[in-house]
């Protein structure tokens, strides 16, 4: 049985490049309109709750959710499903504990919040290493 899996697919590569180009164009357009940190992180507070929900949903229902979880369930069955549940359970807890203090501090990122209380340079280095280690 022959399979096209793993072979270069011209259509897929083209669309990948098209999406990258589109994202970069939108980013460049948005960057010209962005002047302050407030505009950079929260679009100057002009994002409605519904739009924010859409953005979070897009973040959450990502390739990791659809491909990663589907793959995990295919490989390890029920254990893969538990992973997706634990992931979702983390979000309400983050909201209960962190959302309001974050809003009160007027900071936008985890590192900004820590830097507001602790020494700036070491905590930013530690936060960067943590983020990169988790992502990579």
């Amino acid at each position, binding site marked *: 049985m022959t399979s096209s899996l793993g072979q270069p697919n011209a259509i897929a590569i083209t669309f990948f490049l098209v999406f990258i180009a589109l994202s970069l164009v939108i980013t460049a357009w948005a960057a010209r309109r962005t002047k302050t940190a407030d505009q950079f992180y929260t679009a100057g507070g002009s994002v409605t709750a519904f739009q924010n929900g859409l953005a979070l949903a897009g973040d959450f229902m990502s390739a990791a959710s659809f491909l990663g979880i589907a793959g995990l369930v295919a490989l390890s069955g*029920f254990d893969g*499903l*538990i992973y997706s*549940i*634990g992931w*979702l*359970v983390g*979000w*309400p*807890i983050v*909201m*209960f*504990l962190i959302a*309001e203090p974050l809003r009160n501090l007027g900071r936008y990122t985890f590192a900004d919040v820590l830097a507001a209380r602790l020494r700036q340079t070491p905590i930013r280095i530690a936060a960067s290493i943590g983020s990169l280690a988790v992502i990579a």
Partner: protein
Amino acid sequence: MPTISTLEAVSAARWRVAISLTIAMMVVYFGFILLVAFNKPLLGTLVTEGLSLGVLLGVLVILVAWLLTWFYIRWANTHYDASLARLRAPQAREGAR
């Protein structure tokens, strides 16, 4: 709770709600995980054809997460933000104690 008048009381009330909801979420989630870890046969029992108790409880955990989120948002919008608005209003500042 319209009687909340000081900033400390508002803050304490918010932490009480946040901690209670966090504990509720943790109990539900870790209860589920401990069941998975220590009572696999129970979760393997079929509720109906093709649906095991484990999958059903997993979906319920997700629904509980939504429910707690909804509860927090409703509380924040009706009580917390209202209390903060009252505190910020200039005439209320003199009225408070």
